[in-house]
């Protein structure tokens, strides 16, 4: 009875989509959703059948004075359900690998806009290479946030002169973007739920992550890796804007020559 209630209530909350994930904003996120739905149908069917089977068994075979049916098992059944679950479970993995490969087995398209994302307790800092297309050299001994150099950009490197350093990520719509994730202190994370994408930023590593946002709007960036007492308020924004708005953003934020 309770198991029945369980199945019905779970299914109904899901069907009503009371608390859904937000709409996807990239082709990859759409693939993720497709794989999510596929997995949901497969496991949802198994969930309903198993719970109802359990409920049926405990009602149907409760002690009414009958004698239990003696059996030690059935080899054919064992082989059957081993094979079926093996095929279903690994089959899901095979079908879902594409969305993973799109992000991780293929580098960002050439001409992708490179943005460096640096994390520290408890802020994101984004750096654009500026007109020369080159990031200036970084030196951790030069890091001095109060003096306006939170990343430790070397003042003697000409490539760093035009670097744009901002607290929010602005990207043009439908343009491939390659984020280069770094961290200065502990492990943080970059998560945008509309992109269905998260990646840790690990000190000592430079981790590339690419995406193409296809819908103009403002989305939230949150940290999902426990990083200290301010973890819950580590937050930034992803602004997906038109190409012309992007260009005026670059002009506005460029350091005075």
């Amino acid at each position: 009875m309770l198991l029945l209630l369980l199945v019905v209530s779970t299914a109904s909350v899901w069907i009503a989509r009371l608390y859904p994930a937000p709409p996807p904003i990239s082709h990859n996120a759409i693939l993720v959703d497709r794989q999510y739905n596929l997995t949901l149908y497969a496991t949802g069917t198994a969930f309903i059948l198993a719970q109802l089977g359990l409920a049926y068994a405990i009602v149907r075979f409760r002690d009414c004075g009958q004698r239990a049916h003696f059996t030690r098992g059935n080899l054919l059944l064992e082989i059957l359900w081993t094979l079926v679950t093996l095929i279903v479970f690994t089959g899901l993995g095979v079908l879902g690998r594409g969305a993973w490969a799109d992000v991780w087995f293929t580098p960002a398209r050439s001409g992708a806009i490179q943005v460096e994302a640096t994390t520290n307790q408890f802020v994101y800092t984004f750096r654009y290479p500026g007109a020369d297309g080159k990031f200036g050299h970084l030196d951790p001994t030069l890091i001095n946030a109060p003096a306006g150099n939170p990343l430790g950009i070397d003042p003697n490197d000409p490539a760093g002169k035009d670097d744009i350093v901002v607290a929010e990520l602005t990207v043009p719509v439908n343009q491939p973007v390659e984020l280069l994730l770094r961290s200065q202190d502990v492990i943080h994370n970059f998560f945008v739920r509309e992109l269905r994408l998260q990646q840790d930023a690990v000190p000592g590593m430079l981790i590339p992550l690419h995406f193409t946002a296809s819908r103009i709007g403002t989305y939230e960036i949150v940290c999902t890796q426990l990083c200290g007492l301010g973890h819950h308020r580590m937050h930034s924004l992803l602004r997906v804007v038109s190409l012309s708005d992007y260009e005026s953003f670059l002009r506005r934020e460029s350091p005075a020559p």
Partner: protein
Amino acid sequence: MNSADSTLQASSGRPLGFLRRYLFSTDHKIIGLQYFFLALVAVTVAIILSLLMRFHLVWPAAHLPFTSGGIMTPEQYLALVTMHGSIMVFFVLNTAPQSAFGNYFLPLQIGAPDMAFPRLNMLSFWLTLAAFLVMLSAFFVPAGAPISGWTAYPPLSGINDATGPGEGLGQSLWLVGILIFGVGSLLGSINFISTTIDLRAPGLTLMRMPLTVWAWFVTAILSLLAFAVLFAGGILLMLDRVAGTSFFLPAGLVVSGELEMHGGGSPLLWQHLFWFFGHPEVYIAILPGMGVVSHVLANFSRKPVFGYRAMVLALGTIGFLGFTLWGHHMFVSGMNPYSSLVFSFLTLSIGVPSAVKTFNWLGTLWGGKLQFPAPMLFAVGFVSFFVTGGLSGIFLAQPTLDTELHATYYVVAHFHIVMGVAAIFGIFAATYYWFPKMFGRKMNEALGKLHFWLTFAGAYSIFLPMHFVGIAGGVRRYADSTGAMYLAALQPLHLFMTIAAFSTAAAQLIFFYNFFASLNRGKPVSANPWNATTLEWATTWPPAHGNFAGQFPSVHRGPYEYSVPGASEDFLPQHLPEDASAPHDGEQNHAN
């Protein structure tokens, strides 16, 4: 055997004093009870911590008596997160099913007088207790308990309190506690393995062992291999913290504006070492429950376990595969994306032996003559939760979906259902089932049933909605929901879960009352009250030191001979000789 014999002889000569008998006992049954009561204390502490968290998530501005400014700070919340997880994993889910029930019933079920190394057994318990006290003491140092979670990822955990409050002395005490626990666990697992291999009764072949014994045996092997690695990792982390080494710390770290003098280490190395332990740990928590559930389902279905050999094979396969898939905790960590795919397929394949177990449990129920005392209810509940929690794992096993769900409440719901609730239902099934053997009385049936229904409904009410919080992007380990704008919409679900959590916790008071009241006032029972077949019921209550009063049983058949056609009773105990027409122990000992 020698060691067990010598303690027996030493103890049988003269009566033991109170201290030697109940406190510094080498009797596996007393040690099992000591572990059990330690787990009972630990679970009480851990549940109180979780209720404080649930309260804070819904009413963050409420004034609480123990906090300095009256309102819980983020670091206090994270200390609760860390300590709740650590206490539950180590001192409840590891301690109760394996160390407590395994200690008490493994020797009884294989017809042995004690564990192979009784003094080592005592040492294991005292180390575990010491570990618990050391870990708890982290709450009472000035900056409080660590805030890095039970996973303690460096650099957050690897430097000192520059990374946050609690990361100084608190984190060190936590780590020392884990190291002590690891030693106790290693010694315990050596003992379990030796006992199972060497001390089985004549005729008790491996394929005649109860599935509980199989589960404890496989779990002990997992403990031995997993805790050794955690121990090594823990030592390295400690050296990074106190000796200036850089196993897990790379060059160029700037913490709170200060450049750290470290270099050459890798934060990911810790994650590999930790999860090489941490994933088998999940199976250490759940395998004994699987054994108990198989045992109990057969008993109250009055049928042999369906597919006994497949069940043994599945236990072994889960144990083996459990060591090959730790990387699924690290899909977003920055490790090589090709290895993610390998870990993903290994993780999906561990669903197969898990599904085989579920099918066989259903097969055991199918066509049975089902009786529903409290242990059976909890065993059925275990199967339900195991199915639910197992299936949500199929999502997380795919890196494609993990990039959406990782570190959200979806993960919290998944592992709480499968390694928390299911494992605890296994512990409850074991407690109600073996209470008569441990204390000579039955727990109250009506209260047991009430406890089951409230807990079953309550646990689902807490953890099913939690999946939806995760799907909507609710991030775990957040001290409040003010950081991101979209989190506010999820607060109604949090309120529902908090109410459910408090109600479910209150329902556990029924269990505590039933347990302690039944110690003295429960209905006295015969030596074999459930008409069961295995050796723990072949001795009287209470089993004396040495278990079988010198009359060691020999075994003549498999463990689950229920409703065998042609037999006069619907159960054939393992120790009865072949001409099993004689009356059984269960009837002989009614006077007990």
